């Protein structure tokens, strides 16, 4: 192939959308072609700069409440509501958590004395446990239990190691690549932790089983609630939600906006997989 032919492949490669076989051929070419390498660098820089210049715009805080009012949704409480954002199970908690999602993370005052609802772990416990594990693992520089970007191989490794069915994984989410999984013991249960990486930034998603009593009610709602909190570890935050009988805790050092986008992509992926395979619904 000539460089002209490679140009199109370079664009897809920079966008993370080059099939693996084509990427391998292209990467060999890039090792020996300064022109194409420079072109890849130009596109990569441009992509980063455009996203930097335009990606930070956010909707006015009152936009969703106005939309919700027009849709006839229950009135969303004021930002002081996060004290009610304990572990969910009720739609009003979703409304409260939704408010939390648009305020600063630090505003989420999850009181340590909040009791869990339905016997499950309170949100602040999940947040603290998973963030601490995330930080500990990063500091330890230990290897993953399974270092693989292959979702099927990763899930196969976990099949006999956790007592519940894990949701399907994606090889890539918003440009983040699956890099590995770990079997963790947190909150008195075995759970899976799956890490995605992009440009040196990591997002780990902890997947655990919800309490049995919560599972019964969760089966009626694809997403019951989500809440956010900041642990004592500055710079790391967690986004927790419940879906199809599982609890997901997303932990990372990336921005709030990026966390929200990532969680939205996961929520949708799990919902889609459930729609395709209704027997998976727990």
């Amino acid at each position, binding site marked *: 192939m000539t460089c002209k032919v490679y140009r199109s492949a370079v664009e897809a490669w920079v966008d993370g959308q080059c099939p693996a076989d084509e990427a391998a051929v292209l990467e060999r070419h890039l*090792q020996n072609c300064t022109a194409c390498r420079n072109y*890849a660098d130009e596109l990569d820089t441009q992509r980063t700069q455009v996203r930097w210049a*335009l990606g930070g715009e956010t909707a006015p805080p009152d936009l969703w409440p106005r939309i919700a009012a027009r849709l006839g949704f229950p009135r969303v409480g004021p930002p002081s509501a996060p004290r009610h954002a304990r572990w969910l199970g009720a739609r009003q908690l979703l409304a409260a958590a939704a408010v939390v999602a648009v305020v600063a993370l630090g505003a989420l005052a999850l009181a340590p004395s909040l009791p869990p609802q339905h016997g499950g772990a309170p949100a602040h416990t999940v947040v603290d446990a998973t963030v601490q594990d995330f930080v500990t693992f990063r500091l330890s520089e230990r290897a993953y239990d399974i270092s693989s970007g292959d979702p099927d191989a990763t899930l196969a490794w976990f099949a006999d190691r956790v007592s519940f069915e894990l949701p399907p994984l994606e090889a890539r989410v918003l440009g983040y690549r699956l890099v590995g999984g770990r079997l963790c013991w947190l909150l008195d249960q075995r759970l899976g932790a799956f890490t995605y990486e992009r440009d040196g930034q990591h997002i780990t998603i902890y997947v655990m089983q919800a309490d049995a009593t919560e599972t019964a009610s969760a089966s009626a709602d694809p997403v019951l609630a989500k809440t956010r909190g900041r642990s004592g570890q500055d710079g790391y935050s967690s986004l927790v939600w419940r879906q199809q009988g599982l609890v997901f805790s997303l932990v990372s050092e990336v921005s709030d906006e990026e966390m929200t986008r990532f969680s939205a992509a996961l929520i949708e992926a799990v919902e889609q997989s459930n729609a395709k395979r209704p027997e998976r619904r727990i």
Partner: protein
Amino acid sequence: MRGVHEKDRFEALARPHLDALYRTAMRMVGHPAAAEDMVQETCLRAFAALDPHSHKTNFRAWLFRILVNLSIDHMRGIGRQATVSGALVDNVATSAPDPEQMAMSSGLRDDIRAAVDALSAELRLVVLLVLVEEMSYVEAAECLDVPVGTVRSRLNRARSQLQSVLKDHAQGPKRATRPLKVALT
């Protein structure tokens, strides 16, 4: 009358995309009030059309497709207002990465925005969906109701036009470049 469960489900699906819908609308119509109206209308139409008994294979693409159609109707109707409010620019500045870390000259952000605004609507949409919102080509094609090849060709043209702007800043300090993903020998 829609049930509470449907409302919760819609909020859980739609609300995470609110910022993305807003900034896309903002860049398409150029005015905060018009962008807010457009996002509201998008959500109203989506909720009205959402079938409670089926799951969208790609809810985000479906939502954006509604927004894209509204923005096209808007531009056809009154023509695009190119001005972007200073208030929005200030708002963006607070949530963007540290400019020093990005090692960019201070005028670059405004120049990039101006360059994107100057693109034709069809090129601008592809830039917003693929580069800003990081959609796949397939997802962007679904939003725009065009073949994937059209997305790629539009993106190629948009990149060429944007590159001329970025080159003007090439003399300034460079950003912290991501390491190239190949072993250079």
